[in-house]
């Protein structure tokens, strides 16, 4: 069947099961947009107001569904605006394909209008990228892009397509199976011998701890993890990226670890004799001072990406593999009579942990006159039954959301963990809402972060995406202010948000509903009203300006040197 390049693009997307594309048109991608227009019954395009928004939306869609998120932008400025979205997805290993337009082949390299070397620019923030210079490569490249994006350690892949390619004719043959790329063979099955070795250590550990990260979610292995953890009886902590991989309300869960993790989680890391790291990469925000991280522990590390193993921390038992098949192999070994009869009694270890828990490190006081941000998040949790999909931006509100919105299920927590991208939250929430139109999607943001991509309110209104936005408005870039207070003698250099928009009027301008709460008594009614309202809602909570995120491990300190409230 002879098709033009744009038709081949659309057919390849449909072949991959793509239903939603997030993007922004421009000269170099007009043939593709024309083709999407003709196929709007089969494939839905969502027009964002900025390419960065489109990329974050594709990212949010991918995190909420586990499918590959797809973005479409034009050449030059369209593509460069997409870079932050790519880098965000890259750092958090989110499967994504971004199609960028390019100037016609004959003009490449001539500084043509709206030309940018996007393959060069995105080389270090994508898993892989392609420039398609010949129509005969187009279908193969698109199929490889999806395959690379979703297999192994997932990540974003860019396909740069010159405009003339989208208008040339070529024979299209439907795909048969996964593409074969001789230089790309991700390992998925873990080595059985190593897994046995790991289980043997697990069966002997007196003070074990599971440390799990985003890899568990990416691999859809939450059920296996939960089953194994319960069968073993060991305490479990999640990284910021791993929240929801294990139910937060479970008694074996000791909370998040790391810089703003719980006292009990960080003390447990510092005291454990066996640390089983699963799909987590020992980020500096987790380890604190690396030489004092888990000093008494033997370490088992399961990760699909061999470069993550022994990169920051030396590992005793490395297991390279996809989390799900590895846990599927581990689980029966843990359930075996031999393991169960041999494993040491963990009562003393739990008693130690319960002592740390008594610190109640997340305590705060909700006084009568000023709203505490933590209180707002707790109420959001209660009134959504802990069931909402929660997106955040970056800063204090993000950490409070991680600490106070207990996630029971996977794929309900969308946050930029690795790159820490302010402006991520609103478009990511919209992407998740596209994927799950019936679910409650809540954005928890700060007035600083929110202003970075607030133009996407128009997108929310256009597509009737009823996200509930909770702005924890403290008039500061809160996390910056907190660091300035702790480490720069309270010199608040440029962290004061002296002027913020009137969020009520802003909501009105964009067709959303605005609710303001300045008194603790107004918090619950505001949330109730927002949840009962059909369209998008902005809740502007004026919260305590001086509140800090506790507990905190200062950068460079050891995990057991936490600052408690």
């Amino acid at each position, binding site marked *: 069947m002879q098709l033009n390049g744009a038709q081949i693009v659309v057919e390849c997307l449909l072949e991959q099961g793509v239903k939603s594309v997030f993007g922004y048109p421009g000269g170099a991608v007009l043939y593709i947009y024309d083709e999407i227009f003709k196929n709007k019954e089969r494939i839905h395009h969502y027009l964002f107001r900025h390419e960065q928004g489109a990329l974050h939306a594709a990212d949010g869609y991918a995190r909420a569904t586990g499918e590959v998120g797809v973005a479409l932008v034009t050449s030059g400025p369209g593509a460069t605006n997409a870079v932050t979205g790519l880098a965000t997805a890259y750092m958090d290993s989110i499967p994504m394909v971004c199609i960028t337009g390019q100037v016609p082949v004959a003009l490449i390299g001539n500084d043509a209008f709206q030309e940018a070397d996007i393959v060069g620019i995105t080389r270090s923030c994508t*898993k892989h990228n392609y420039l398609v210079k010949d129509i005969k490569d187009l279908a193969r490249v698109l199929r490889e892009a999806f395959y690379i994006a979703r297999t192994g350690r997932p990540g974003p892949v860019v396909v740069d397509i010159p405009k003339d390619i989208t208008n040339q004719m070529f024979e299209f043959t439907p795909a048969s199976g996964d593409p074969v790329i001789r230089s790309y063979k991700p390992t998925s099955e873990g080595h059985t011998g190593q897994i046995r070795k790991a289980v043997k250590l697990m069966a002997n550990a007196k003070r074990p701890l599971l440390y799990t990260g985003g890899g568990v979610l990416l691999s859809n292995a939450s059920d296996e993890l939960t089953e194994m953890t319960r069968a073993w009886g060991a305490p479990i902590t999640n990284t910021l990226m791993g929240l929801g991989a294990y139910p937060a309300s479970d008694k074996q869960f000791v909370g998040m670890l790391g810089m703003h993790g719980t006292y009990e989680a960080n003390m447990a890391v510092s005291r454990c004799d066996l640390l089983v790291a699963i799909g987590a990469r020992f980020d500096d925000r987790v380890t604190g001072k690396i030489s004092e991280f888990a000093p008494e522990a033997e370490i088992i590390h399961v990760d699909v990406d061999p470069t993550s193993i022994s990169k920051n921390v030396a590992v005793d038992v490395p297991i390279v593999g996809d989390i799900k098949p590895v846990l599927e192999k581990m689980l029966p070994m843990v359930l075996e009579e031999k393991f169960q009869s041999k494993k040491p009694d963990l009562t003393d270890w739990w008693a130690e942990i319960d002592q740390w828990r008594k610190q109640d490190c997340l305590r705060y006081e909700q006084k009568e006159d000023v709203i505490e941000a933590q209180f707002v998040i707790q109420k959001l949790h209660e009134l959504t039954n802990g069931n909402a999909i929660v997106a955040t931006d970056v800063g204090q509100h993000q950490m409070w959301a991680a600490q106070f919105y207990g996630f029971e299920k996977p794929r309900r927590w969308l946050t930029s963990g690795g790159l820490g991208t302010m402006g991520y939250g609103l478009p990511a929430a919209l992407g998740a809402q596209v994927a799950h139109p019936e679910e409650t999607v809540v954005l928890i943001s700060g007035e600083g972060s929110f202003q970075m991509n607030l133009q996407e309110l128009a997108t929310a209104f256009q597509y009737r995406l009823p996200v509930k936005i909770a702005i924890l408005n403290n008039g500061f870039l809160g996390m910056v202010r907190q660091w300035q207070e702790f480490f720069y003698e309270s010199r608040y250099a440029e962290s004061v948000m002296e002027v913020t928009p009137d969020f009520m009027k802003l909501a009105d301008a964009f067709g959303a509903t605005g609710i303001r709460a300045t008194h603790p008594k107004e918090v619950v009614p505001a949330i109730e009203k927002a949840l009962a309202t059909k369209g998008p809602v902005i809740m502007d909570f004026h919260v305590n300006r001086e509140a800090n995120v506790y507990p905190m491990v200062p950068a460079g300190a050891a995990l057991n040197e936490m600052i408690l409230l």
Partner: protein
Amino acid sequence: MKHILSVLVENEAGVLSRVAGLFSARGFNIDGLTVAPVGDGETSRITLETYGDDNIIEQIIKQLHKLVPVIQVHDLTDRPHVERELMLVKVEAERDMRAEVLRIADIFRSRVVDATSSTFVVEVTGSSDKLDACLNLLEPLGVVEVVRTGKVAMARGAKRMREGLKEAPVKK
């Protein structure tokens, strides 16, 4: 410690900048880098000289493997291998100095590949040490220009680098 890595890659546009970019982005060192298409022209072979402790070298090898167009990576440092470098030296050679240049060239089994009334171009191949030694002797005579390729290296013995790939289908 110095390491010599042999990297087999798909011969496609941009591969070299992916490899070089990996080193600069992650703060690894490149001491030498040679690259050219080999065999059927579908693959290129990169010889890379780098240094670092064992952990760094392990990371470099793993990170190289992670690049999609990289087919194989081998650390040749600890296995028997041969390595060669090529150098061209343009040296001043007038009247009585001409014989001296030719003598030195002869000692290093090198060849004069160009001659004018005032200069020679000498081609030297061998280990990097040998090239250094030759250059040291030529320098006092008046070296005008030097160009060196950087090392190429290959494991000794019958095993071929591509052997493990035999059954893999070749990309069109």
